[in-house]
């Protein structure tokens, strides 16, 4: 019973990691670098919801489903714009430079956002209480206890993952994304507007991060400008474990990491080392499958 409860806890947490990991993996797919500012977009998503909640309450009444959807959609839109702006201002001018330059810039962007937001006149560094977006009920089914919010998060994540799969596999833009990720130059020669595809990828990835940020804050309703670092780091591991650049891999990695972390946290004496355990597993996976669980190893073309 206890292990089933742990699995439920882990899946609810892991599905949030999966959403964040998708953003990392998509950007890696088209640009071949890790967008470290992704975790800060998550934080901006949570803060957008924080400031939108009173507006939504006035428009739709307190803790209504319409209000929650309104908040999620608007916050996702705000973060999509932020994501596109980050790419346009910070990464695009460096497109033709070595990947290391872009990587360091990404770290710089991340620190810039974190410390700007900690300033008194922006959000301030203290923890803010995240408003209740939905009336939550504690559900108990045959000894399994969880919050109704966990269930909603799980379902919405599944829907979003399916939506992402459809978008990438079945739409014209998805085909363009895949083409750019396969070979940027060849895609450009075939008439794909590479800049547009990259902006689009950032918009979607950032929107997902915003939604993940809101879900994360619904689970733990205390938000601060550094809140993105921990889930961001874990989602990054999830993306690598699943095979970076691979969408189902990111989802699988996220769920796996959520479960491992929760189960490890529940073992007396080990609970303190749960991050260490997650990283040890990352190393093990990469030793035996260097391209990740679902990743295909590619021969480097010289």
């Amino acid at each position, binding site marked *: 019973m206890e292990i089933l409860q742990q699995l439920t806890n*882990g899946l609810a947490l892991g599905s949030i990691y999966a959403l964040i990991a998708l953003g990392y993996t998509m950007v890696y797919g088209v640009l071949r670098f890790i967008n470290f500012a992704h975790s800060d977009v998550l934080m901006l998503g949570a803060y957008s919801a924080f400031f939108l909640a009173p507006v939504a309450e006035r428009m739709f009444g307190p803790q209504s489903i319409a209000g929650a959807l309104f908040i999620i959609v608007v916050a996702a839109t705000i973060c999509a714009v932020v994501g596109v702006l980050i790419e346009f201002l910070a990464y695009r001018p460096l497109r033709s430079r070595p990947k290391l330059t872009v990587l360091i810039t990404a770290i710089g962007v991340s620190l810039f956002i974190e410390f700007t937001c900690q300033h008194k006149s922006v959000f301030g560094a203290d923890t803010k209480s995240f408003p209740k977006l939905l009336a939550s009920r504690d559900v108990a089914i045959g000894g399994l*206890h969880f919050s109704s919010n966990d269930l909603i998060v799980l379902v919405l994540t599944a829907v979003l993952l399916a939506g992402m799969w459809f978008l990438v596999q079945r739409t014209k833009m998805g085909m363009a994304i895949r083409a750019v990720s396969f070979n940027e130059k060849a895609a450009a020669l075939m008439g794909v507007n590479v800049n547009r595809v990259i902006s689009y990828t950032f918009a979607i990835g950032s929107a997902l991060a915003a939604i993940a940020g809101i879900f994360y804050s619904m689970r733990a309703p205390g938000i601060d400008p550094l809140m993105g670092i921990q889930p961001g780091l874990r989602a990054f591991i999830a993306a690598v474990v699943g095979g970076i650049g691979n969408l189902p891999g990111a989802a699988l990695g996220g769920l796996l990491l959520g479960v491992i972390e*929760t189960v490890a946290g529940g073992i007396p004496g080990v609970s303190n080392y749960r991050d260490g355990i997650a990283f040890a597993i990352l190393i093990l996976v990469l030793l035996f499958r260097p391209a990740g669980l679902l990743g295909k190893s590619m021969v480097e073309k010289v």
Partner: protein
Amino acid sequence: MKCTLLFLTTAAAFSLVGCKDANTAGDIIVGEYASLTGKEATFGTSSHEGTMLAVEEINAAGGVLGKKIKLITEDNQSKAGESATVVNKLISKDGAVAILGEVASSRSLEAAPICQSNSIPMISPSSTNPKVTETGNFIFRVCFIDPFQGTVMANFATKTLKAKKVAVFTDVKSDYSKGLAKFFKEGFVKAGGQIVSELDFNGGDKDFKGQLTTIKGASPDAVFVPGYYTDAALICIQAKEIGLNVPLFGGDGWESEKLTEIGKDAVEGTYFSTHYAPDVASDLSKKFVAAYKARYNGKLPDAMAALGYDSAMMLADGIKRAGSSDGAKVRDALAATKDLDAVTGKLTINEKRDAVKSAVILKVEGGKFKFVETVNP
């Protein structure tokens, strides 16, 4: 010509700065470091407001030794490493003759060695870990210590909560939490109780369900969470969600309005021990509450504010009795503090430079902290 003009303006600017320094030379400079922002921001803010109020009252009454006290406050953003930097700055750049701070034991432990090696007295308002004053003979505090607080909570768990089996959930990142957990466990086992589960978390974590599920599996009568308020509030919320419906209780790290603001109905019915409650009060305490309310727009002072106030009052008393602001002389005077009337009770410093004080236990009820009982040492 332009060059000369620029030079002259710069020189003028510098001389202005020089003037400012010269003006304050007559004041007694006291440094304060506090967590004004970050994870434990309400601790630093309360403590700072109490300290400020004390300094203003002292100065309004003519200061000490005919001089005004000038308080210079630095923010450490609740971050590890920052306290050492800002205290170094307060001592070497600002020339502070004494240092006041911090609430969190981990951060007091960072600054204490610096004050000790500079022979500058430091008074911590509310760090309860015994190691803080063990750093050296220049380090004092105006609050009780965790061996006492741990025993108080152990007795409370056995007598009032009637708990036989208790789980302990410790923040391994915090010296305060580890110390308090240790003393609680010793006290609880001595009182005949049983510790059924011991799990750890890292301060700043957002997900505790893994640990809480295991704690629930051990079916304790109550759970002791010696942590700080943000983590404690999240733990209470997630405990309710997985159906762990036993009383949760903690130490003075819980006392913040953020506990109820974040935890909402999940923290209802929880208990914690702290230094002071505004309901049970001496005349001095009533005066302090009135003055605090008047100064800070009707805000009710909490224990951190009261202790911040007391720390500044004890320092002023020490300087007065020392007859000078020299570090070693003030130290000797502080060590001899006896029966000083303070907001949080009579203040006597023992040979370990700790204050011997009683503790109060509060219950969260209707979003407010309600007084339950006082426990004397």
